[in-house]
C-alpha cells in the first residue's frame, strides 16, 4: 500500500473571510441535502408527524373547538400549525448538532483549515431550507383539509416570511442546545419541552379560555405573536384578545425573533468557540 501525496501548497491558503465562510457553509449545507437524499426517513417522519397533528386537530378535536369570535377552527388552526412546525424544528437542529459533536465530526471540522464558523452557517442554511419545505407541505396539507387564506400573494409571502423568521431565530436556540447538551437524552428532553412551549400559546387554543395568569403567559409566548400576525396577514380568524402584546402582534412577530437571535446567536457562537476551552 502506498499513499499518493497532495501537498498543502497546492490549495488556497486562506480560510478566513466572508468568501470562505460562505463557500464552506454551502459545502456543509449540501452535505445535509445529501443526507435527505440518502436517508430521507427522518425527514419524512418529521413531515408525517406534522401532518398527523393537523389531521388530529382538524377531525378529532376540531369538532369541539369553539372560537370566542365565532370563526372557523380550520382557518384558525393552520397559521398556528405553521408556527408550531417551526418550533418542532428546534429538536431537529439540536439532534443534528449533537450527533456531529458526539461522533467527533465537529472536532474534525475544527482541526481542519476551513472557515471556523462555517459549520454553524451550514447547519442554519440546511435547516432553513427544510423549514421552507415543511411550510410548503403544511400549506398544501392545510388546503387539503379546507384551510383557505383570504389574502393576496404578497400578504401570504409576508406571513411565510414571519414564520421563517421565527424558525431562523429558533435555529440558534437549537444550535446552542446541541452544543451545550450531551448525548441523545438531551435531544429527547428538547423534544419534550417543545410541547408545553407550543401548547401554551394561541396556536391551538384561545388564551381567553385559559385561567387568567396562564392566558397571559400564552399571550406573551413569542410563538403567539407570530401566529397572531400570520392569521392577520392570511386573513384567517383570530381569537380577539385585546392585550397590548396581541394588538401589536405584527411588531412583536419581528421583535421576538430578533430578541431571541440577539440572545442565542452570540450564545451559540460563544459556545462553539469555547469548545476549545
Amino acid at each position: 500500500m502506498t499513499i499518493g501525496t497532495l501537498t498543502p501548497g497546492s490549495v488556497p491558503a486562506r480560510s478566513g473571510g466572508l468568501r470562505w465562510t460562505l463557500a464552506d457553509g454551502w459545502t456543509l449545507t449540501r452535505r445535509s441535502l445529501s443526507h435527505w437524499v440518502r436517508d430521507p426517513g427522518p425527514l419524512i417522519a418529521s413531515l408525517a408527524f406534522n401532518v398527523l397533528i393537523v389531521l388530529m386537530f382538524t377531525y378529532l378535536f376540531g369538532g369541539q373547538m369553539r372560537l370566542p369570535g365565532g370563526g372557523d377552527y380550520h382557518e384558525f388552526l393552520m397559521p398556528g400549525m405553521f408556527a408550531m412546525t417551526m418550533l418542532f424544528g428546534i429538536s431537529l437542529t439540536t439532534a443534528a448538532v449533537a450527533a456531529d459533536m458526539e461522533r467527533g465530526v465537529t472536532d474534525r471540522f475544527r482541526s481542519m483549515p476551513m472557515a471556523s464558523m462555517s459549520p454553524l452557517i451550514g447547519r442554519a442554511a440546511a435547516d432553513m431550507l427544510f423549514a421552507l419545505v415543511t411550510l410548503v407541505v403544511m400549506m398544501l396539507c392545510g388546503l387539503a383539509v379546507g384551510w383557505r387564506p383570504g389574502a393576496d400573494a404578497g400578504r401570504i409571502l409576508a406571513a411565510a416570511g414571519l414564520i421563517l423568521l421565527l424558525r431562523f431565530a429558533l435555529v440558534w436556540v437549537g444550535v446552542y442546545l446541541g452544543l451545550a447538551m450531551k448525548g441523545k437524552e438531551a435531544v429527547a428532553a428538547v423534544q419534550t419541552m417543545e410541547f408545553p412551549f407550543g401548547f401554551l400559546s394561541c396556536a391551538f387554543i384561545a388564551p381567553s379560555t385559559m385561567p387568567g395568569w396562564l392566558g397571559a403567559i400564552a399571550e406573551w409566548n413569542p410563538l403567539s405573536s407570530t401566529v397572531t400576525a400570520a392569521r392577520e396577514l392570511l386573513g384567517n380568524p383570530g381569537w380577539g384578545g385585546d392585550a397590548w402584546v396581541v394588538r401589536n402582534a405584527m411588531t412583536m412577530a419581528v421583535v421576538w425573533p430578533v430578541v431571541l437571535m440577539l440572545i442565542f446567536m452570540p450564545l451559540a457562537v460563544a459556545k462553539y468557540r469555547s469548545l476549545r476551552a
Partner: protein
Amino acid sequence: MGDFAIVAKGLRKLYGGKPALDGLNLRVPQGTVRGLLGPNGAGKTTTVRILATLLRFDGGRAEVAGHDVATQAALVRRRIGLVGQNAAVDEVLSGRQNLVLFGRLFHLDGGRARRRADELLEQFGLDDTGSQPVRTYSGGMRRRLDLAASMILTPSVLFLDEPTVGLDPRGRNEVWEAVRSLVRAGTTVLLTTQYLEEADRLSDRISIADTGKVIAEGTPDELKSTIGGDRIDVVVRDPRDLPRAAAAVARVSGGEPTLDDDRRMLSVQVRGRVGTLAETIRTLDAAGLGVEDIALRRPTLDEVFLHLTGRRTQSADGAGGEEKAGKGGTGRKGAAGTGDGARTEQEVEA
C-alpha cells in the same frame, strides 16, 4: 527547532483547577513515529487535542510543523491530520461522499476533490465499498476511511488517538498497515495507545505518560531493558506444584518469578524469547510438572507502570481485574511458541 515536527515544552492544562497535563514535554523528530503510551487519564487525549489546536492550554509552549499551536492555529491546521478516539466520519454519506466533502472543506475544487477521493479510496482498499453508506462499514473500514480523510492534504504531522481501540485483530492490522504506509510517505506520527505491543510495533520511540507528564522515553528496545522485557506465564495443573515450578523457571530464566496462587500461575521476566520458552517447557516437562498453559508475552502496561512508578495503573483495579478474569476463565493464553503472546491483552479488551 527545525528538525522537530512536534515540540511541547512544559505543557499545562487545568480542568477545574486540577491538572490534566502537568508540565508535559515532548520532542518528535520529523518523519518518525512516536508512541505516547499511558493508562486511562494519563493525559494522552488532552495532549493530542492541544497539539491539534482543538484545545487551549494554560501553560508551556507547543509547536507543530514549525508553527506555534497557540498563535498560528490556522497554519497548523493545514499541516496536520487527526484521527480521534472514535471514527469521525459521516455515517449517512458514502465513503466517497465523505472524502469529497472533506476535500471540499480543504478547499480543493470539485474535480480535484473527487479525484483525490477516488485515489484515496483505492489506496486504502475501500474502492469496492466507496459508494455504500458508512454505517454499513466494519470498524476497520471506518478507521481506514477516517485515516484517508486525514490524508486528503498530505499532513506533515498525523495524530492518532488510540486508533485501534475496539477493533478486532484484523481491523487492527489493517490500521497498522495504513499507518506504516503514511510514514513511508514522510509523515510524522504521534500515536497514543494503551497497548505496549502497538507502541512497540509502530514507533521509533516511545514516551510513557502518567498523570500529565512524560515519565520515561526511549526506543522500544531501550525501554524494554529499563522496564523489563518479555515475560513467560506458566499455569500449573496442581497448585501444590507451584513452588517447584517457580524454582525450575527461575533457574532457566535467571529471573525471580512472581506467584499467583489463585490462578495457579507464575510469571517471570525473560531475556531470550522463543529459546527460553522452549527451554522452560523442556525443564518443566523433565521435572514431571503438569502444565496447563504456558505463554510468552510482552509486559502489560500495568507491569510497566508497576516497574516505573512502583504502583499499579489507576485502571488496574477495575479493568485489570476483568482482564485477569478473562484470561483465567477462558484460558486464552494458548499462544505458546507463536512469539505473539502480547495479543492476549488486546483480545480481552476487544
